[in-house]
């Protein structure tokens, strides 16, 4: 219950116009800080749904696959240059961002993550590693300005942000392959 309240408070804070404007003024903060934080608020808010409707989740998301697919779809959608631009130019898209990332990405992620097992988790991490390398390459190497609201230099910064994240994911994968965490717990 407490988690849900914290999640809602964080969501409200992020939605405050000065906070939102500040975060959206820098491309990399918009995509790599604001959006993940929105997902995180959903992660916290999910608690109340899990307590209230445990059976629905067990029934509709028994193996975690629908939830994780929904999460991937929403995240990939928000890495498109166009979605990000439109969130800045159109009020309705901005609202959709603040609704879809917590509700359709954060909540399913929390419920699915423990259900999909180690193999599923690693598959998702591998998928995002490939995706982030791809997006990084796109944003760094693109000869044109992809987002009308941001400068090319910000686009390159964002690209390196993607690549850096991908490197971290690779390090994690190597680490879990060669060590057995249960030995240290």
């Amino acid at each position, binding site marked *: 219950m407490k988690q849900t309240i914290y999640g809602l408070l964080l969501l409200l804070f992020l939605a405050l116009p000065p906070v939102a404007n500040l975060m959206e003024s820098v491309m990399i903060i918009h995509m790599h800080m604001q959006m993940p934080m929105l997902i995180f608020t959903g992660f916290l808010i999910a608690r109340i749904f899990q307590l209230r409707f445990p059976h629905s989740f067990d*029934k509709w*998301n*028994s193996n975690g696959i*629908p939830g994780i697919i929904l999460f991937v779809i929403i995240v990939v959608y928000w890495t498109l240059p*166009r979605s990000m631009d439109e969130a800045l130019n159109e009020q309705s898209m901005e609202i959709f961002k603040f609704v879809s990332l917590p509700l359709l990405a954060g909540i399913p992620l929390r419920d699915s993550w423990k259900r999909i097992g180690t193999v599923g988790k690693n598959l998702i991490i591998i998928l995002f590693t490939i995706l982030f390398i791809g997006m990084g390459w796109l944003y760094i190497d693109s000869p*044109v300005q*992809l987002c*009308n609201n941001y*400068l090319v230099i910000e686009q390159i910064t964002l690209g390196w942000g993607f690549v850096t994240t991908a490197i971290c994911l690779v390090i994690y994968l190597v680490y879990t392959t060669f060590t057995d965490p249960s030995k240290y717990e």
Partner: protein
Amino acid sequence: MIKNWPTTFACLLVILFGFALFYIGTDGFQAFTAETARVNKLIDDKPKFPDVTFEDSKGRNYSISEFKGKYVFITFLYTSCTTVCPQLEMNMSKVYDKVPSKYMGKDINFLSISFDPARDDPSTLEKYRGYFNSDGETWRMARITKQAELDALLKEFGVIVIPDGNGSFAHNSAFYLVDKNGSLVDVMDYKKVDEAANKLVDILGKEAGE
């Protein structure tokens, strides 16, 4: 599997939702950047060129009706630009050279519009025009002195200009074609010179044939 049918159903539902989301979000997998979406929408909407007053490199003042009855081939630039504008204008001059001179000034005019009226006064434009062999008549360079009029035009034609704080601007670039009645009819990729020139020759040829 049968026991799991709600989950399987949810899976399908989610995939369908994702497909719809991407389909709508990219105009049917057509436009993945806002710029593509903008250009497609402009070509559909065909907005009218707003009523603005130009001041050209020769210090003359006129509105878009100066070009009534002719096509106008337009670019937006600022002369202090060191990146994309010189390339844009260079490509514009290539298009200019490819269009037969019999049409020039009679059926079509070229127009470069500055969105930096503070610095681009007539004498600056006069000098700049020389770099690209613009004659100042059939290819004119002009500024719009009233900021409100300039903003209205940029908004109507979807030109997004962001000052970068060092006296430069980031902006989207394209070739714009306005028809004889002052409506925007096409937005072309400024990197594809031949394509743009062929299109112009095609349109002008059809008009002449009528």
